[in-house]
């Protein structure tokens, strides 16, 4: 009962290992979730595993009381009605604007065509960034590897998340602008935040101390 009956949405992928390490330090049994990567729901431990971008959906609806996901996901889904309680500090990465190395094709497109095409998995963050900086951009939403888009002439630039920049470099892309920094965050459902206030506050204290 180390989560005191709270249901926690665990992100699969890049944030998962450090999330589970944190849960170990809190005394949550992560044995089963570590060894079984097909199972999704671990009732005994109070854990539900899912894609990071689904965490706000489950938490907003109350299907999970609390969850862990990246600030990048929260920024992209800014309208979700969830509480952002704590910066967990792990999983640091940056949202960047990148184009192919050499002369910046996006700048040229902007100058000569008045608009640049930008591929991203984060259409709202990208649109907001170019609006804020006064540039016209046509946002192309892609689901898979964003790096492919500028190499094939689909777009002039990309907005994507990078931790080390290795994937960008290997594809001949250079970072032109940094848009935002991101780390893992603990979020809570607004109703659980009231009805399970004591359990959530105790968990926050233990995470801060862990």
């Amino acid at each position, binding site marked *: 009962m180390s989560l005191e009956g709270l249901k926690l949405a665990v992100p699969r992928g890049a944030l998962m290992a450090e999330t589970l390490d944190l849960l170990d330090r809190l005394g949550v049994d992560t044995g089963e979730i570590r060894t079984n990567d097909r199972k999704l729901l671990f009732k005994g431990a109070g854990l539900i595993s899912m894609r990071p971008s689904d965490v706000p959906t489950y938490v*907003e*609806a*109350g*299907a999970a009381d609390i969850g862990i996901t990246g600030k990048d996901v929260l920024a992209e889904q*800014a*309208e979700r*009605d*969830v*509480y*952002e*309680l*704590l*910066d967990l500090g792990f999983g640091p990465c940056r949202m960047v604007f990148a184009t192919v190395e050499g002369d910046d094709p996006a700048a040229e497109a902007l100058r000569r065509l008045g608009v640049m095409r930008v591929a991203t998995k984060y259409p709202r963050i990208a649109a907001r960034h170019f609006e804020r900086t006064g540039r016209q951009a046509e946002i192309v939403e892609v689901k898979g590897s964003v790096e492919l888009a500028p190499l094939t002439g689909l777009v002039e630039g990309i907005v994507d998340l990078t931790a080390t920049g290795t994937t960008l470099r290997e594809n001949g892309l250079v970072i032109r602008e940094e848009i935002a920094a991101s780390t893992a*965050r603990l979020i809570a*459902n*607004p*109703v*659980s*935040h*009231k*009805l399970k*206030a*004591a359990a959530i*506050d105790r968990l926050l204290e233990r995470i801060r101390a862990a």
Partner: protein
Amino acid sequence: MIHPIPSGTRDVLPDEMRELRAITEALREVFEAGGYGEVATPALEYEATLTQGDPAAADPAYKLFDEHGNVLILRSDMTIPIARVVASRYAAAEPPLRFSYFAHAYRSVRPQRGQAREMLQAGVELVGAPGPDGTAEALAVLCAGLDAVGLENYRVGLGDASLYPRLLDRLGVPAGARPQILHELVTRDFVGLEREVAVHGHDELLRVPQLRGGAGVLEGVPEAAALRAVYDRLEPAVAERVIFDLGLIRSLGYYTGAIFEVYDAALGAPIGGGGRYDDLLRRFGRDLPACGWALNVERLHIARVGESRGA
């Protein structure tokens, strides 16, 4: 044949309607017993009339032109229309005035989110009864209504819209820094709030809005004195439903004091809410304190069904 209806709207068929009626009839009995006479107002109002009450609060999703070119809006709640009714039809009536309603309200929706464009609200407005007594009465009617509907595990979150602004005053936070601080609070981002208040060096700015729980959380917060006064006037059956939440924020701009929201563990979102709006009637020409609340009948129904399934 497929004949679509707008997203966020729906048809109600007899089985569901019977259950919704059972809920609204139970509420209606409680409203009548408390002296809250039922009113109906037009779904369409002149924009110029409603924005007089609160330019921001009206914020209607649907505007249209009538045959003379006047701008009409579909009401987004019942509080402002009832404020208009009080000022124009009860201009000389002796307060307090008590009204109830069952009415559809209209809001804009975000795509693919399952949000309702048209929602059935049941609520009351208590006009001319200042806090804390008026607030306590509104809360008592709220709990009586929820009890009559048969909801068992509901709780009422109780906060104060003026609490945080007064805290900022007491701590002397400069006016220029406040919009960003309030933005973090409204967007429920305590990570952002911590960053924004760090430069002011007052731990209370971060600690107070995270206080939730029993009456004990009011201790040591001078701005919570008004909430304490409300609490002292609640019957035990109502008081035991209350969870104080010193960070509670409601999206409508006209609230001036106590605010509340209704929760049930069977639903991830509030079932309804309300609060005090002591300045709204004055803008319509009758300077009376008031408070009220509205329940979303469809959400109430979902919570009721969820509870009976043992959620």
